[in-house]
Protein backbone atom coordinates (compact mmCIF):
# COMPACT_ATOMS: atom_id res chain seq x y z
CA UNK A 1 0.00 0.00 0.00
CA UNK A 2 1.41 3.36 -1.03
CA UNK A 3 1.71 5.99 1.67
CA UNK A 4 1.76 8.81 -0.88
CA UNK A 5 -1.94 8.98 -1.86
CA UNK A 6 -3.30 9.13 1.74
CA UNK A 7 -0.71 11.76 2.61
CA UNK A 8 -1.58 13.86 -0.46
CA UNK A 9 -5.26 13.71 0.51
CA UNK A 10 -4.47 14.73 4.09
CA UNK A 11 -2.27 17.63 2.95
CA UNK A 12 -4.96 18.92 0.55
CA UNK A 13 -7.63 18.57 3.28
CA UNK A 14 -5.43 20.43 5.77
CA UNK A 15 -4.73 23.21 3.26
CA UNK A 16 -8.44 23.59 2.52
CA UNK A 17 -9.15 23.85 6.22
CA UNK A 18 -6.34 26.38 6.66
CA UNK A 19 -7.88 28.60 3.97
CA UNK A 20 -11.37 28.56 5.53
CA UNK A 21 -12.22 31.97 6.95
CA UNK A 22 -14.52 31.59 9.94
CA UNK A 23 -11.88 30.77 12.54
CA UNK A 24 -9.31 33.34 11.32
CA UNK A 25 -12.09 35.97 11.05
CA UNK A 26 -13.31 35.32 14.59
CA UNK A 27 -9.73 35.22 15.85
CA UNK A 28 -8.86 38.58 14.29
CA UNK A 29 -12.02 40.13 15.74
CA UNK A 30 -11.36 38.58 19.15
CA UNK A 31 -7.73 39.77 19.19
CA UNK A 32 -8.86 43.29 18.23
CA UNK A 33 -11.27 43.43 21.18
CA UNK A 34 -8.69 41.85 23.48
CA UNK A 35 -6.21 44.58 22.52
CA UNK A 36 -8.92 47.20 23.06
CA UNK A 37 -9.61 46.05 26.60
CA UNK A 38 -6.27 44.74 27.82
CA UNK A 39 -2.54 45.18 27.53
CA UNK A 40 -0.70 43.56 24.59
CA UNK A 41 0.70 40.90 26.92
CA UNK A 42 -2.76 39.86 28.15
CA UNK A 43 -4.16 39.89 24.60
CA UNK A 44 -1.30 37.62 23.49
CA UNK A 45 -2.02 35.33 26.39
CA UNK A 46 -5.74 35.17 25.52
CA UNK A 47 -4.93 34.54 21.86
CA UNK A 48 -2.95 31.42 22.79
CA UNK A 49 -5.96 30.16 24.76
CA UNK A 50 -8.17 30.74 21.70
CA UNK A 51 -5.76 28.80 19.47
CA UNK A 52 -5.57 26.04 22.07
CA UNK A 53 -9.39 25.89 22.04
CA UNK A 54 -9.39 25.41 18.26
CA UNK A 55 -6.68 22.74 18.51
CA UNK A 56 -8.48 20.88 21.29
CA UNK A 57 -11.68 20.94 19.23
CA UNK A 58 -9.80 19.57 16.23
CA UNK A 59 -8.20 16.80 18.26
CA UNK A 60 -11.49 15.90 19.98
CA UNK A 61 -13.44 15.68 16.74
CA UNK A 62 -10.63 13.66 15.10
CA UNK A 63 -10.67 11.16 17.96
CA UNK A 64 -14.48 10.85 17.91
CA UNK A 65 -14.59 10.30 14.13
CA UNK A 66 -11.59 7.95 14.32
CA UNK A 67 -13.40 5.82 16.92
CA UNK A 68 -16.63 5.80 14.91
CA UNK A 69 -14.93 4.88 11.63
CA UNK A 70 -12.80 2.26 13.35
CA UNK A 71 -15.96 0.74 14.85
CA UNK A 72 -17.78 0.74 11.48
CA UNK A 73 -14.87 -0.72 9.53
CA UNK A 74 -14.07 -3.36 12.15
CA UNK A 75 -17.59 -4.69 12.00
CA UNK A 76 -18.19 -4.25 8.30
CA UNK A 77 -14.91 -4.25 6.39
CA UNK A 78 -16.77 -4.40 3.10
CA UNK A 79 -18.29 -1.00 3.84
CA UNK A 80 -14.92 0.56 3.11
CA UNK A 81 -15.64 0.08 -0.53
CA UNK A 82 -16.19 2.00 -3.69
CA UNK A 83 -19.69 2.97 -2.51
CA UNK A 84 -18.24 4.82 0.48
CA UNK A 85 -15.65 6.52 -1.72
CA UNK A 86 -18.28 7.58 -4.27
CA UNK A 87 -20.47 9.01 -1.51
CA UNK A 88 -17.52 10.95 -0.08
CA UNK A 89 -16.48 12.19 -3.53
CA UNK A 90 -20.05 13.36 -4.20
CA UNK A 91 -20.07 15.25 -0.91
CA UNK A 92 -16.87 17.02 -1.94
CA UNK A 93 -18.36 18.00 -5.30
CA UNK A 94 -21.40 19.39 -3.45
CA UNK A 95 -19.09 21.22 -1.02
CA UNK A 96 -17.16 22.74 -3.94
CA UNK A 97 -20.36 24.26 -5.34
CA UNK A 98 -21.66 25.24 -1.89
CA UNK A 99 -18.38 26.95 -1.12
CA UNK A 100 -18.24 28.79 -4.43
CA UNK A 101 -21.77 30.13 -4.22
CA UNK A 102 -22.57 30.42 -0.53
CA UNK A 103 -19.48 30.66 1.68
CA UNK A 104 -19.01 34.41 1.27
CA UNK A 105 -21.99 36.73 1.42
CA UNK A 106 -22.51 39.27 -1.34
CA UNK A 107 -20.91 42.67 -0.97
CA UNK A 108 -17.54 43.84 -2.21
CA UNK A 109 -16.59 45.67 0.96
CA UNK A 110 -17.60 42.93 3.36
CA UNK A 111 -15.93 39.75 4.52
CA UNK A 112 -19.24 38.39 5.91
CA UNK A 113 -19.53 34.61 5.78
CA UNK A 114 -22.31 32.06 5.35
CA UNK A 115 -23.27 31.75 9.04
CA UNK A 116 -26.65 33.25 10.03
CA UNK A 117 -26.35 36.93 10.98
CA UNK A 118 -27.72 36.36 14.46
CA UNK A 119 -24.98 33.81 15.18
CA UNK A 120 -22.37 36.22 13.75
CA UNK A 121 -23.67 38.96 16.06
CA UNK A 122 -23.54 36.57 19.02
CA UNK A 123 -19.91 35.67 18.23
CA UNK A 124 -19.13 39.36 17.89
CA UNK A 125 -20.70 40.09 21.28
CA UNK A 126 -18.96 37.08 22.83
CA UNK A 127 -15.57 38.14 21.41
CA UNK A 128 -16.08 41.62 22.87
CA UNK A 129 -16.87 40.34 26.35
CA UNK A 130 -13.93 38.01 26.84
CA UNK A 131 -12.31 38.54 30.21
CA UNK A 132 -10.51 35.31 31.03
CA UNK A 133 -8.42 32.66 29.32
CA UNK A 134 -11.20 30.10 29.67
CA UNK A 135 -13.59 32.45 27.80
CA UNK A 136 -11.05 32.65 24.97
CA UNK A 137 -10.59 28.87 25.00
CA UNK A 138 -14.36 28.30 24.80
CA UNK A 139 -14.73 30.79 21.95
CA UNK A 140 -11.99 28.97 20.01
CA UNK A 141 -13.65 25.63 20.67
CA UNK A 142 -17.10 26.93 19.64
CA UNK A 143 -15.78 28.59 16.47
CA UNK A 144 -14.27 25.30 15.33
CA UNK A 145 -17.67 23.65 15.62
CA UNK A 146 -19.44 26.33 13.52
CA UNK A 147 -17.53 25.38 10.40
CA UNK A 148 -18.22 21.66 10.70
CA UNK A 149 -20.48 21.71 7.63
CA UNK A 150 -17.35 22.28 5.54
CA UNK A 151 -14.74 20.55 7.69
CA UNK A 152 -16.48 17.33 8.73
CA UNK A 153 -16.05 15.61 5.32
CA UNK A 154 -12.39 16.68 5.36
CA UNK A 155 -11.88 15.01 8.74
CA UNK A 156 -13.70 11.85 7.65
CA UNK A 157 -11.76 11.35 4.43
CA UNK A 158 -8.44 12.20 6.11
CA UNK A 159 -9.06 9.62 8.83
CA UNK A 160 -10.24 6.95 6.38
CA UNK A 161 -7.14 7.50 4.27
CA UNK A 162 -4.83 7.54 7.29
CA UNK A 163 -6.24 4.20 8.45
CA UNK A 164 -4.69 2.68 5.33
CA UNK A 165 -1.15 3.48 6.49
CA UNK A 166 0.93 2.36 9.46
CA UNK A 167 0.86 3.94 12.91
CA UNK A 168 3.97 6.15 12.84
CA UNK A 169 3.31 8.11 9.62
CA UNK A 170 -0.35 8.26 10.72
CA UNK A 171 0.50 10.10 13.94
CA UNK A 172 2.91 12.40 12.09
CA UNK A 173 0.19 13.17 9.52
CA UNK A 174 -2.38 13.97 12.25
CA UNK A 175 0.03 16.36 13.99
CA UNK A 176 0.90 17.87 10.60
CA UNK A 177 -2.82 18.37 9.84
CA UNK A 178 -3.46 20.17 13.12
CA UNK A 179 -0.40 22.39 12.63
CA UNK A 180 -1.38 23.36 9.06
CA UNK A 181 -5.00 23.97 10.06
CA UNK A 182 -4.03 26.37 12.87
CA UNK A 183 -1.15 28.06 11.02
CA UNK A 184 -3.33 31.02 9.86
CA UNK A 185 -4.15 31.80 13.50
CA UNK A 186 -0.46 32.00 14.41
CA UNK A 187 0.07 34.10 11.30
CA UNK A 188 -2.69 36.57 12.33
CA UNK A 189 -1.30 36.67 15.87
CA UNK A 190 2.09 37.52 14.40
CA UNK A 191 0.54 40.25 12.23
CA UNK A 192 -1.02 41.87 15.30
CA UNK A 193 2.26 41.61 17.19
CA UNK A 194 4.08 43.36 14.36
CA UNK A 195 1.72 46.34 14.40
CA UNK A 196 -1.00 45.42 11.90
CA UNK A 197 -4.61 45.98 12.86
CA UNK A 198 -8.09 44.58 12.25
CA UNK A 199 -8.84 46.98 9.39
CA UNK A 200 -5.72 45.91 7.45
CA UNK A 201 -6.31 42.21 8.11
CA UNK A 202 -9.98 42.43 7.08
CA UNK A 203 -9.15 44.39 3.93
CA UNK A 204 -6.59 41.75 2.94
CA UNK A 205 -9.18 39.02 3.57
CA UNK A 206 -11.62 40.84 1.31
CA UNK A 207 -8.98 41.22 -1.42
CA UNK A 208 -8.36 37.46 -1.25
CA UNK A 209 -12.05 36.52 -1.47
CA UNK A 210 -12.14 35.60 -5.17
CA UNK A 211 -8.86 33.70 -4.93
CA UNK A 212 -10.10 31.76 -1.90
CA UNK A 213 -13.45 31.02 -3.50
CA UNK A 214 -11.79 29.57 -6.59
CA UNK A 215 -8.91 27.77 -4.92
CA UNK A 216 -10.97 26.08 -2.20
CA UNK A 217 -13.69 25.01 -4.62
CA UNK A 218 -11.00 23.56 -6.89
CA UNK A 219 -9.42 21.94 -3.83
CA UNK A 220 -12.70 20.17 -3.01
CA UNK A 221 -13.03 19.02 -6.63
CA UNK A 222 -9.43 17.83 -6.65
CA UNK A 223 -10.07 15.82 -3.49
CA UNK A 224 -13.14 14.22 -5.11
CA UNK A 225 -11.06 13.34 -8.17
CA UNK A 226 -8.19 11.83 -6.14
CA UNK A 227 -10.62 9.82 -4.00
CA UNK A 228 -12.32 8.33 -7.06
CA UNK A 229 -9.10 7.54 -8.91
CA UNK A 230 -7.33 6.14 -5.82
CA UNK A 231 -10.48 4.13 -4.94
CA UNK A 232 -10.58 2.64 -8.43
CA UNK A 233 -6.90 1.84 -8.05
CA UNK A 234 -7.37 0.16 -4.64
CA UNK A 235 -10.28 -1.97 -5.80
CA UNK A 236 -8.70 -2.99 -9.05
Amino acid at each position, binding site marked *: MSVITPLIIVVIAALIQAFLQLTPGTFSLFYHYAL*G*KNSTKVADDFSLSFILGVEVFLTTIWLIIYSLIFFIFCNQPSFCSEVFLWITASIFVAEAFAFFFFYFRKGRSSSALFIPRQIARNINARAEKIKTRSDAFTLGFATGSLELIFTLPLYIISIVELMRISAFPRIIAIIFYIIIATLPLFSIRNLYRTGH*NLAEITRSRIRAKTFLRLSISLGFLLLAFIIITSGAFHHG
Partner: protein
Amino acid sequence: MDDKTLKQLTRTLLLHAKGLGLPIGAAEVFIEKSLLTAKKTLSSHSVITENDVTRAVAKELRKYNSDLAYVYQNRDKII
Protein backbone atom coordinates in the same frame (compact mmCIF):
# COMPACT_ATOMS: atom_id res chain seq x y z
CA MET B 1 -28.98 61.10 19.62
CA ASP B 2 -29.38 61.35 23.39
CA ASP B 3 -26.55 61.51 25.93
CA LYS B 4 -26.82 57.80 26.75
CA THR B 5 -26.31 56.84 23.09
CA LEU B 6 -23.39 59.26 22.80
CA LYS B 7 -21.71 57.81 25.88
CA GLN B 8 -22.19 54.27 24.58
CA LEU B 9 -20.84 55.23 21.16
CA THR B 10 -17.83 56.94 22.72
CA ARG B 11 -17.08 53.81 24.75
CA THR B 12 -17.39 51.54 21.69
CA LEU B 13 -15.26 53.81 19.52
CA LEU B 14 -12.56 54.11 22.18
CA LEU B 15 -12.45 50.32 22.44
CA HIS B 16 -11.97 50.06 18.68
CA ALA B 17 -9.40 52.87 18.71
CA LYS B 18 -7.34 51.11 21.38
CA GLY B 19 -7.67 47.83 19.47
CA LEU B 20 -6.32 49.57 16.38
CA GLY B 21 -3.37 50.91 18.35
CA LEU B 22 -4.32 54.61 18.04
CA PRO B 23 -3.08 57.08 20.70
CA ILE B 24 -5.95 57.28 23.18
CA GLY B 25 -5.65 61.00 23.92
CA ALA B 26 -5.92 61.97 20.26
CA ALA B 27 -8.66 59.38 19.68
CA GLU B 28 -10.76 60.82 22.52
CA VAL B 29 -10.57 64.28 20.97
CA PHE B 30 -11.50 63.32 17.40
CA ILE B 31 -14.17 60.83 18.51
CA GLU B 32 -15.88 63.57 20.52
CA LYS B 33 -15.66 66.00 17.58
CA SER B 34 -17.01 63.37 15.15
CA LEU B 35 -19.92 62.46 17.41
CA LEU B 36 -20.90 66.09 17.94
CA THR B 37 -20.84 66.78 14.20
CA ALA B 38 -22.80 63.60 13.50
CA LYS B 39 -25.34 64.64 16.15
CA LYS B 40 -25.71 68.04 14.49
CA THR B 41 -26.20 66.42 11.07
CA LEU B 42 -28.82 64.01 12.38
CA SER B 43 -30.72 66.64 14.35
CA SER B 44 -32.51 67.75 11.18
CA HIS B 45 -33.87 64.21 10.58
CA SER B 46 -37.35 63.44 11.88
CA VAL B 47 -36.68 59.68 12.13
CA ILE B 48 -33.22 58.30 12.90
CA THR B 49 -32.36 54.64 12.34
CA GLU B 50 -29.29 52.76 13.62
CA ASN B 51 -27.93 52.75 10.06
CA ASP B 52 -28.26 56.54 9.86
CA VAL B 53 -26.20 56.90 13.04
CA THR B 54 -23.56 54.44 11.80
CA ARG B 55 -23.27 56.18 8.42
CA ALA B 56 -23.09 59.69 9.90
CA VAL B 57 -20.52 58.75 12.56
CA ALA B 58 -18.40 56.75 10.08
CA LYS B 59 -18.45 59.68 7.64
CA GLU B 60 -17.10 62.03 10.30
CA LEU B 61 -14.55 59.53 11.63
CA ARG B 62 -13.19 58.97 8.12
CA LYS B 63 -11.88 62.55 8.16
CA TYR B 64 -9.58 61.69 11.07
CA ASN B 65 -8.85 57.97 10.77
CA SER B 66 -10.02 55.70 7.96
CA ASP B 67 -9.20 52.47 9.83
CA LEU B 68 -11.42 53.40 12.78
CA ALA B 69 -14.25 54.43 10.45
CA TYR B 70 -13.88 51.17 8.53
CA VAL B 71 -13.90 48.94 11.63
CA TYR B 72 -16.84 50.82 13.14
CA GLN B 73 -18.90 50.69 9.95
CA ASN B 74 -18.15 46.99 9.28
CA ARG B 75 -18.15 45.71 12.85
CA ASP B 76 -21.05 43.31 12.13
CA LYS B 77 -19.68 42.16 8.78
CA ILE B 78 -16.20 40.93 9.76
CA ILE B 79 -17.39 37.31 10.07
